[in-house]
């Protein structure tokens, strides 16, 4: 059913397609990463494709799998009007782990891209607010990369300011930032 959508995208961006496959009726296009914004805009706006929903955006780390490119971005698209799906994959290299952001196409990409940045360290060019979303700002590294040590812990570190340091203080904090445990993000003025 989504063959038509796949053919439309393939026809429009013939030079970008690396390969295509289909598993259990889910069409997948592996494409070059350069024009992802244009591809996504086409997928959303073309009446035959009409992918009005980005159901998921994630990444995979293929470290030591014998691939040329280490990462792969995965976009799961769904059309609520046509009721078909399409999956777009982009190989992303390690040296320049950066992809254009699709927040301009689907607003829901915002937090998903932040999660991918948090977990895999893939940057999104043009993202309005690329911060960690699940982990804390003090965290070093990206835990879903396969070279992150499996049992490595990074307990939340002490704050520099001893007044704010709830780990060392026995007594209850009061004041404007009394509810703030994480440096920066939760502070009220």
């Amino acid at each position, binding site marked *: 059913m989504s063959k038509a959508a796949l053919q439309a995208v393939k026809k429009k961006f013939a030079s970008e397609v690396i390969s295509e496959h289909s598993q259990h009726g889910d069409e997948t296009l592996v494409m070059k990463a350069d024009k992802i914004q244009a591809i996504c805009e086409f997928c959303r706006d073309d009446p035959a494709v009409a992918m009005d929903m980005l159901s998921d955006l994630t990444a995979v780390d293929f470290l030591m799998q014998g691939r040329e490119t280490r990462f792969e971005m995965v976009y799961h698209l769904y059309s609520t009007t046509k009721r078909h799906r399409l999956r777009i994959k982009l190989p992303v290299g390690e040296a320049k782990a950066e992809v254009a952001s699709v927040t301009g196409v689907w607003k829901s990409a915002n937090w998903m891209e932040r999660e991918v940045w948090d977990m895999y360290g893939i940057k999104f060019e043009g993202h309005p607010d690329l911060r960690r979303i699940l982990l804390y700002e003090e965290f070093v590294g990206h835990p879903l990369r396969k070279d992150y040590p499996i049992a*490595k812990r990074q307990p*939340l570190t002490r704050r520099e300011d001893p007044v704010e340091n709830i780990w060392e203080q026995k007594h*209850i904090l009061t004041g404007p930032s009394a509810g703030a445990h994480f440096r920066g993000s939760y502070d009220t003025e």
Partner: protein
Amino acid sequence: MGIELYGVETLQQILGWARKYSMFKQPFVTACCGMEYMSAMGPRYDLSRFGCEFVQFTPRHTDLLFVVGTISERQAPVLRRIYDQMADPKFVVAFGVCASSGGFYQNYAVVPGVDQIIPVDVYIPGCPPRPEQVIDGIVRLQEIIQAGETHSQKELRQLAGAKG
């Protein structure tokens, strides 16, 4: 003294007896163990038989902290803060393996046991624990409270001793 209480000898014993049958709970429920906690609280297993039915969702009015479920690194300061806000003497129960030791999680996100953050008096194993295990844990906690051997009570005694 004129008043005779059968089986009770000292003021400490009276206090321990009073404390162990009137524990106000603060449940810190983060994961699936919460379902089993509800069942232990419900009419079938009925923790109120053990003087432990009162649930408060404010740490300042409670003396028993139930850590129910997985605690992530990011939640750790919050849990510590809730513990600090509770009134002395305070008791902590680690409910289930995740709270006790991190359970099957060994990764970047999960605290391997809440005793890394706060002192724990009773560990209840199980994934999740059966209500019988919870009741057993509560009864054991009551024994420890009666004996005055919880972390908080020991600390308070030390403080009192230091003051003289």
